[in-house]
């Protein structure tokens, strides 16, 4: 291999961000265009990553190793499999779309904002391609910094409170996560994540490790009842921050379950499967009711995200209810969970962008103050309709694919799980379309709504790109599902084997 693609994907945006930061006040540099160019290059590189990926085996690909602290097994190790490659592509795509869509919505400290975005992108790629636990942890924690700044500087309203809550909440979870990683590294003599998978662990240490992992991941996802930081963070964050937060940052938690909990402590996962599933179902049903009565558009979509993430954790832990059964039903649920994550990246991103477009124009997100946007913004309304339908999981959009797979799989595990999970069909429709009705339909409520300008230029391009992804995955999900098969098969065989000696 000639170019270390993954390293480029990590360091190109980070260095680009530093460059943008350093040229911030020089007039000759149009930092928006430079940032867009950098993120566009990463999109192309991620596509080339996909095209070079060999789907026929589960082994890690695009591996890179640089020695760092070899004595304790801490190295700069990168690599992707069929699962993480999807997230790497999602990150590059969503950052590009976000930079396009928020072209005009940030008015002060533009280069600092763009730099945060680019650096965040590089760090996120690092999270999803690290093969060394310490490297993973460093990237994992580092992502907090640009996000903290994005909320705290470019946010609105009570932004400092929201930023601090976001930081302290998620940082608190990660502390125990680090402790568990160090324990594993010490008994294993290396921090290579793949070698953790073959580690034999007694049941009690597994339980402790599981709980330590759980706190870190559950807060990140977020699962009920540690979800309350998310509505605050989303509400006060700028549109671009919300997009990245919902589209990518939330997925880190579930990715953590897939990379750490499931393969390293399968017996503890098995032990905790029912509580986890019940928490997931609470997230799906309870949060849907909460979303129903929100008056702030962003809060509503934030709660909707939590509800969808419930499906993800459901898919992850369903496999343990089918312990003895063949791999097929388990794979369906697990792949469904991953598809939901990818699809939710596009959909929630699009919805947050849409709210951002409204906010840029009217400086309000309160549903009560909005009505009749369709009268003056027909193009926006059509796209928003598509994304609202995708959020509901209407077949033919990406939102349907994963939910369908998880429901099919859940039914084989337990009828009642499927029953509660499927209630999302009408619950999500209720809160999404009721919101849509109140905001978009009706007679224009005020003169400022009558005078709204429809989306144009970069905003339109961003929406078209997202709409394309949503419909494409809805009608032809094979390219992103089939690339996972071998890796999922491998993960399942590890997760179905007891680690107790």
């Amino acid at each position, binding site marked *: 291999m000639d170019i270390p693609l993954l390293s480029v994907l990590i360091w190109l945006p980070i260095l680009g961000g530093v460059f943008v930061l350093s040229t911030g006040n020089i007039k000759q540099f149009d930092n928006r265009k430079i940032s867009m160019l950098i993120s566009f290059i990463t999109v192309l590189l991620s596509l080339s990553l996909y095209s070079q990926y060999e789907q026929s085996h589960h082994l890690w690909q695009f591996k890179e190793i640089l020695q760092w602290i070899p004595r304790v097994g801490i190295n700069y190790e990168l690599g992707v499999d069929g699962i993480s490659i999807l997230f790497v592509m999602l990150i590059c795509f969503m950052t590009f779309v976000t930079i396009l869509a928020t072209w005009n919505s940030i008015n002060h400290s533009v280069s600092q904002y763009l730099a945060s975005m680019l650096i965040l992108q590089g760090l996120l790629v690092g999270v999803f391609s690290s093969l060394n636990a310490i490297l993973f942890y460093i990237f994992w924690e580092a992502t907090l910094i640009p996000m903290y700044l994005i909320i705290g500087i470019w946010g609105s309203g009570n932004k400092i409170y929201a930023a601090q809550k976001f930081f302290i909440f998620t940082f608190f979870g990660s502390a125990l996560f680090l402790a568990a990683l160090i324990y594993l590294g010490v008994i294993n003599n290396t921090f290579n994540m793949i070698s953790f998978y073959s580690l034999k662990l007694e049941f009690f240490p597994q339980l402790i490790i599981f709980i330590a992992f759980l706190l870190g991941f559950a807060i990140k996802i977020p699962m009920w009842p540690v979800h309350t930081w998310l509505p605050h963070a989303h509400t006060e964050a700028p549109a671009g921050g919300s997009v990245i937060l919902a589209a990518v940052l939330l997925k880190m938690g579930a990715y953590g379950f897939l990379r750490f909990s499931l393969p390293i402590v399968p017996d503890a996962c098995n032990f905790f499967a029912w509580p986890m599933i019940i928490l997931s179902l609470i997230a799906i049903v309870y949060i849907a009711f909460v979303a129903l009565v929100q008056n702030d558009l962003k809060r509503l979509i934030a709660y909707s995200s939590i509800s969808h993430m419930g499906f993800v954790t459901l898919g992850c832990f369903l496999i343990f209810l089918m312990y003895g059964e063949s791999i*097929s039903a388990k794979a369906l649920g697990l792949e469904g969970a991953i598809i939901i994550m990818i699809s939710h990246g596009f959909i929630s991103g699009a919805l947050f962008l849409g709210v951002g477009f409204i906010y840029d124009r009217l400086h309000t997100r309160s549903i009560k103050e909005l009505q009749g946007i369709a009268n003056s913004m027909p193009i926006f309304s059509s796209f928003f309709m598509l994304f609202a339908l995708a959020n509901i999981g209407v077949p033919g959009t990406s939102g349907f694919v994963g939910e369908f797979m998880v429901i099919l799989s859940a039914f084989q595990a337990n009828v009642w799980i499927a029953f509660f999970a499927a209630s999302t069909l009408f619950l999500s429709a209720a809160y999404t379309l009721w919101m849509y009705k109140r905001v978009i339909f009706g007679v224009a409520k005020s003169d400022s709504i009558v005078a709204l300008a429809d989306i144009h230029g970069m905003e339109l391009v961003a929406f078209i790109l997202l709409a394309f992804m949503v419909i494409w995955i809805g009608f032809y999900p094979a390219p992103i599902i089939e690339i996972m098969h071998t890796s999922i098969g491998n993960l399942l065989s590890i997760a179905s084997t007891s680690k107790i000696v």
Partner: protein
Amino acid sequence: MFGHLTEICLAILLLPLFSAIIVGISGRNMTIAGAHRITTLSVGVTFILSVLLAKSIFIDDFSTYNVNLYSWFSGRDIFPFAFHLGFMIDELSVVMLVMVSLISFLVHVYSIGYMSGDEGYKRFFAYIAFFTFAMYLLVLANNFLQLFIGWEGVGVASYLLIGFWFKKESAINGSLKAFLVNRVSDFGFILGLALIFSYVGSLDYQIIFANKLRLANHIINFGSIEISVITLVCLLIFWGAMGKSAQMPLHVWLPESMEGPTPISALIHAATMVTAGVFMVARMSPLFELSEVALSVILIIGATGALFMGLIAIVMNDIKRVVAYSTLSQLGYMMVAMGTSAYTVGIFHLITHACFKALLFLGAGSVIVAMHHEQDMTKMGGLRKYLPITYWTCFIGSLALVALPPFAGFYSKDMIIQAAKASNIFGAEYAYCCVLLGALVTAIYTFRAFFMTFHGKVEHENVQEPGFVITVPLIILAFLSIVIGFILFEPMLINNLLKEPIVTPLHNTLDSITSSFNGHLPFIGHAFGTKVFWLTWLGILIAFIFYYLYPNLPTFVSNRLSLIYSILNNKYGFDTLYEIIFVRSSKFFGDILTKIVDNLIIDFTLVDGLGVVTNKIGRLLSKLQTGLVSHYLSFMIVGTTLLFIWVILR
């Protein structure tokens, strides 16, 4: 010909889709005429292609054609199945296809007149072309996944079209309600699919049919209740059909869908989309055949709707609502046919009903246009002389609806009543009474509306017959409403052309009711000896007396029977009940969860509370560090004393 079936199907599917997309994204670049030309032409072409398909199936006698177009995704070696998109061309799908494309084409033409001058003209045509695409997708499906995609696609189109006039509060409420009620029924449907999938491991029709005995032989226990898998499957997917085909108690959305433009009511909420549930039951008839419980449930629910929804139509004053409740009642009839295992009869009624109900809706639309968008029948009357073409076509439509021989409705409805009589399944007697009385009710409400609209001595100003794009579809549909029953009766029922998709019933009602058939004249002749024939005439007579001879009589009677009247006028209270149970209580529930559990308990008390407690402890501890030596000294003395005491007592 056979080799090109896939291409033809593909063309049928994609023509309306592409025309919808082109019209949808063209914006200002396209003229008004361009929009309707593209969509109408493409749907017209799909009608011709559908007829070609029908020819190759019926006349050239091709066997069932089943092809997978591409796979949605496959499991490779991880799981041994794949989800496909594909086509199943057989008698059932072809009959549906021809019907859908014909009605859709006529509605397109009609809309050119009806929607002219509307500011959303192009959007309208994009929507109905999209609807047509989704309906084709549903009908042509060879597996449940694709059916479900089309199923939801028509739901979305219906949602968009009911709320087409999005400034009208009642329209956007109606569209939301329609979508949500349908979603509640999809909830059952998707669970049904999951159940099938967990036993069969595939969603392809042919594989499901091949494994149907596996479903029949398994039992599931719910506590002490034992239920066979096939019964559960059938009940769940029928739950799905109940939403789309507006069966009680999930019918509440259909009357409110009338807030949309009238051509939509004709196309979606009378002829095509609402019959999707009936179609799906017919498609799955090999499964339903194996579950008598499910058949009984279908029969009873269908029969109840057939009678009680018809009763509501008698008290409605909005012309479209009358036709809407009539549709609910007729859908009940179709379900009765399904429940008696006379699937072919149900489909037959579906086809004839599509013709005359589309006619009645379009006729109502013509009246509404002529009356400058007035829908209240009490303000109409005497329209006969202003709207002669509408009058005569509606007259034919009404005769077909009340099922007088030899109009289309007679053939199909008479067969349904006979099937209910002949059936020996649980609930058949009840169903027979319902459909029989339903015939009386149908006659009353149909001719009530007819007399109220067209007769009487009301003078109107500035009312005239709409243009030919509106009247020509009416005339074509009126013609069909006369002859379609006569034409299709023998090929569909006697020769049982639909035998192949619809496996021979174990409960063979169809044969027992068609065995005595020996020509059309004797068949029509036997009608004069049946109860239903005379009940129909009785109904027409009642309508004639109340609404033609003595127009003051209805008010008198409704005052006398005010309790019954108000029950009917409130539609048995379903709306109020649902408003309280679902809408208000979920908002209440959501409020409690948000304000008390989420905000107060979790966020304020636990999360922020943790911060506050940490803060408090910090302040408390900071008091220890006063910096005064005397304080430290006293702490030391207390500490050492306690230590001594502990050591001594140990």
